[in-house]
């Protein structure tokens, strides 16, 4: 039981970070970022290149992942999303763009990093063992702690800084924020870059444990969509709850249902659909997003 709970916390903290980035982008620009999983994979590969290949310290490699994704996110928003949102008759056209970007990033990852599974050496060795009831490698504990720290830092940023206040205002009401003198274009770019950075940061953290490969992008996006739906789209607390709930469901499902084969995800999907039929806006969401 302790083991399941620990696994749940570990999975949940990472999932929450992925969902946070997605929900931030959604809240600010009403864009469903299909390319989120690919951004996560790129973050992982950058850390792999710097930490695994070039031997740079892990923290520096992680920072490089964040910087790469911030630049990438800002460019994508500035050059692609902003003009398309302005020029299209229907908001949903951004979905086509997001899917195109997802394909594009997949192609870039394939050409630059190849299709092999990549892993890096462990950051710290050793396994935490509490009476054989709770077994957890130290590096997982470290990654989990780093993830929780990043989430706290992100919430602090959103709550207590001027940027965070502007972003929250933007998420609440774009026009009203503009009328109050918020530079909407600039903060959209910043918000998108921040969301992309979170995806890259999780990628960088997770490459040390699960490794990284090209095919992880799409499934990660789907999981992120699920978490956002559980918690409610565009709400930060909702994304965190969604991540934790999905993490725990997965941990419990894998432990309890393993003898029935691979039906954990089927059950999660089905229960999600029933849940959404009863509460369409998710746990924390505003009705009709």
């Amino acid at each position, binding site marked *: 039981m302790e083991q399941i709970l620990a696994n749940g916390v570990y999975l949940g903290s990472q999932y929450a970070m992925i969902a946070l980035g997605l929900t931030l982008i959604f809240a600010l620009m009403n864009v469903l970022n299909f390319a989120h999983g690919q951004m996560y994979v790129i973050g992982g590969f950058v850390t792999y290149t710097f930490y695994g290949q070039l031997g740079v310290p892990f923290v520096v490699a992680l920072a490089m992942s964040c910087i790469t994704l911030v630049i990438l996110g800002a460019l994508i928003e500035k050059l692609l999303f902003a003009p398309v949102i302005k020029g299209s008759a229907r908001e949903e056209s951004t979905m086509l763009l997001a899917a195109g970007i997802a394909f594009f990033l997949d192609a870039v990852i394939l050409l630059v990093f190849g299709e092999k599974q990549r892993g890096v050496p462990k950051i710290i060795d050793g396994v935490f063992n509490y009476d054989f009831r709770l077994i957890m490698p130290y590096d997982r504990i470290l990654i989990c702690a780093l993830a929780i720290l990043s989430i706290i830092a992100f919430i602090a940023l959103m709550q207590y800084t001027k940027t965070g206040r502007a972003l929250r205002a933007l998420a609440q009401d774009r026009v009203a924020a503009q009328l109050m003198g918020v530079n909407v274009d600039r903060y959209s770019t910043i918000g998108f870059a921040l969301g992309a950075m979170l995806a890259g940061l999780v990628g960088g953290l997770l490459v040390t444990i699960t490794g990284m490969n090209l095919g992880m992008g799409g499934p990660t996006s789907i999981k992120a969509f699920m978490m956002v739906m559980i918690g409610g789209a565009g709400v930060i607390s909702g994304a965190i709850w969604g991540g934790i709930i999905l993490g725990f469901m997965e941990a419990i499902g894998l432990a309890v249902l393993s003898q029935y084969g*691979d039906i954990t995800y089927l059950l999660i999907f089905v229960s999600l659909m029933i849940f*959404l039929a009863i509460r369409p806006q998710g746990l924390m969401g505003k009705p009709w997003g």
Partner: protein
Amino acid sequence: MFHLTRKQLIGVGIFLFAIFVGVPLIIGATGRWDFYFTLTSVALLSIASAGVWLTFYIGRINIGQGAFALIGAYVSAILVVKAGWSFWLSLPAAGLFAALVAVVIGIPILRLRGVYFAMITLVLTQVVTLTALALPITNGARGMSSIPLPSGVSLFGIPILPDFASMANTKLAFYYTACVLMIVTYAALYRLVNSRLGHLCRSMQQNEELASSVGVNIAYIRVVIFAISSFFGGIGGAMFGSIAQSVYPSSFQVVDSVNFMLNCFLGGLGYVFGPMLGTLVLYFGWDLLFEFQQYQLLIYSTLLIIIIRFLPNGLLSLRAYKGRDK
């Protein structure tokens, strides 16, 4: 019944002539027999895309058509292989079963809107793939293979449809079948859009509450539209399974669902024939870029991004631009 102007009639005539006479002649002359398979796929995928377009028409973003295509493909395959039905009977059965599933699932999930509906339909695709893996009747990951080709049909001793297995050139036969199905689908779609139901759909697209307040039964219409949409998906999927002679859980995945949606976007959501054009451009473009080997996806996605960047309202919006300049 269709109230076409003379200009539209001529356009339809040219189009029919091109696909039934022109394409076989060109393929015969160039010897690119592989294009038959490509064009057949385009025709079938555009049937499924037509369904997605119809859900767009009531203002819902549907990324779940892959689920219904997979359901259709499996239903047809199971009926043909295990129950020994004729393929031509199993085809409407597959469509009807997909529509039935759509009604059952649609009643709760059609209450969702916007991005929520988009995400739940995306998840639905994943659910159907996983269900196909878990159920015993679908053979799990091994799928259903070596499905027999469609058999002949005769009414009172007069052969109506020939036996595909005894044919020398099944590619051409499948091409014609797919084209006929596609034309029937789009004729039905055109008729539907220009009917009373089409008007009601447009009112829902603009504002559901307002439509409801003037007496439109929105709950009923959205389920009906979703069922019709899934019917198209099921038909397209069943025909696809019959051509490939196999169905696997991976035959229609999330990527395919996303592609169906992209076809509609690219063609333009305001035009009935948009999804057909979108499917042709996307699928044919992808096939033509095969020459570039590992750069295929890169070039394809770059072109896609450029198109959406400069034509955010779809390819057919070029025509609207021209109209505005005059």
